[in-house]
């Protein structure tokens, strides 16, 4: 169960527009969610109601289904039981094409391993993210977000030439470029030392704040526990 203030629901069209207000919306919810890879061993997940502008930590040891949950929440995996709703849209009601488009428009995902289009530079990687989500390419927005993440000077660099820290920032920029209502981060700090761990957490919180997005971090990194009052424990 997510912990937080009470929430209200709004019609789908008004949600993104209303995010700037002080009203907190129900952005992501799950009910009776469960998954199995072999039809015998089931992983069941707690019900969640996550609000806009809130931060959540999903913690658990290896093998507890953290990544599976993240993929279910992001619509990368279809639930075998239960449902996932984002922005009042039940993901299981959507066909493949519509789900892909919805995900591109509403969900930003930051993976543990940073992967990019190797043939493109930083700016182009963000441009293709805009294009594939069905948005118009907006170079000004790309410049703004890269500047906010202090990697504006790497706009024309090939992603393979970036340091690990820079790659992570570009991955964050890419996840945020389409102003998603939900940001999912998979083990963003597991490979980082304490200093960089805090820096990345701070960065994620700030950028989620700027975007008024719901932030869910999936991790087994205990260093993050004190930073996030809203926690979902998987066992």
């Amino acid at each position, binding site marked *: 169960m997510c912990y937080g203030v009470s929430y209200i629901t709004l019609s789908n069209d008004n949600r993104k527009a209303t995010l700037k207000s002080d009203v907190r919306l129900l952005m992501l919810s799950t009910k009776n969610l469960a998954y199995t890879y072999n039809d015998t061993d089931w992983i069941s997940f707690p019900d969640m109601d996550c609000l806009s502008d809130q931060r959540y930590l999903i913690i658990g040891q290896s093998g507890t289904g953290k990544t599976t949950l993240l993929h279910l929440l992001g619509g990368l995996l279809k639930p075998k039981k239960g449902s996932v709703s984002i922005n009042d849209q039940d993901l299981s009601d959507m066909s493949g094409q519509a789900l892909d488009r919805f995900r*591109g428009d509403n969900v930003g995902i930051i993976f543990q*391993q940073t992967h990019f289009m190797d043939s493109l530079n930083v700016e182009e990687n963000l441009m293709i993210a805009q294009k594939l989500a069905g948005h118009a390419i907006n170079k000004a927005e790309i410049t703004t977000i890269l500047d906010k993440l202090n990697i504006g000077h790497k706009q024309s660099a090939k992603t393979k030439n970036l340091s690990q820290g820079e790659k992570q920032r570009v991955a964050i920029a890419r996840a945020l470029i389409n102003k998603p209502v939900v940001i999912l981060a998979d083990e963003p700090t597991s490979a980082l030392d304490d200093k960089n761990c805090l820096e990345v957490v701070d960065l994620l919180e700030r950028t989620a704040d700027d975007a008024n997005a719901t932030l869910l971090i999936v991790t087994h990194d205990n260093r993050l526990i004190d930073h996030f009052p809203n926690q979902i424990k998987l066992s």
Partner: protein
Amino acid sequence: MNLLSLSWKNIMNKPLNLLLSMVLFGLGIGLINALLLMDHQMKEQFDSNLAGIDMVIGAKGSPLQMILCSMYHIDNPTGNIGVGEAKPFLNPKHPLIETAVPLALGDSHRSYRIVGTDHSILSLYEAQIGEGKLWEQHFEVTIGRVVADETGLKLGDRFQSSHGFNDDVDLLHEHGDGFVVVGILQPTGSVIDQLILTTTKSIWDVHGHEEGAEETHEDHAGHDHEEHDHEHDAAGFHLLDYPDEEITNILVKFRNRTNFQALNLPRNINENTDMQAASPPIEINRLYSMIGVGVDALRNIAIIIALVSAFSIFISLFSSLKDRKYELALMRVMGAGRNKLFLLIILEGILLALLGFIVGFIISHIGMEVIAHYAKASYRYSFTGFLFLKEELVILAVSLLIGVVAALIPAFQAYRTDIHETLSK
């Protein structure tokens, strides 16, 4: 940034794969295209020089050689025939023959053949005088446009002929003041542009001197040679008055080419005389079929190369999928549907094929231009690499189709990308 530009950047991101595919595909397509250009231009050249000629008469030997020598001027004569023997076919009142053009060959100037003939040859090639006048007197010549352009000969220029068809100073005839240029023909695009035309008797006279013959024509009425003076009036010259002399060939146009007797005339000549007659279309078709064997073999090799290159495009795309599985999964995460992934790989296949086609196109046209250079030097035939055929668009379409087919399986693999499985690893 769209799928096309992403495809372009993806293939450019693997320069070695790109180079291999382009070189292989370019070689296959280049060879096919070069064969197409060569075949087209050869047929065009041969067809344009058929000039409505229905039959060629000459000495017995290879009929194809005779045709190549007398009509295309790219082979040696099979021999000579006596004017007396050929007399019936030179008779303007022959019931089956509309035009009979005598040719006396054997000499050249800087590899351009000197042809002893009469003005009727002009009607065969629809040639008209451009500068000066037609040859009238013995040792006067009217030259084709190409001869004028390539040798620099102008009106009033004089030159000595060489024996044979090669440019060899050791074979130069020493004969008085030699030939004088009195006219230049307008360009026709046919073989006459490459000929030096003069009277038949001029050819005889040159050879008469070379062989030390004491003016062998003295007996002929009205022809009293005056000590190497060839400025004498040739207006009274009649070929049939010299039955003991020889010519090389007669180019014949029938009055009615569907006439049964006319169609049988070559067979009659071959069976009943010491001469041979050949039909140009038949011999040229025979030539096409002989060349065709080699062309077909080359074309098959080219097709095999194209197929191998298609396979290289397939391998290139298929192997790159392994490296790019995260990219493809990410595209799905960012909102791309399966169809877009399929289309992306197909576009990459098309672009690889297109680049290969462009390389092949350039190779074939440059190659053709190089061949044209040698063909012109060796055979005086003007091929060109700057000819663009509609059939090349068909080759382009087939190339793109090969690109699509080669990309189908990799594209289907991309279509089936499992985001969860890929990104969980």
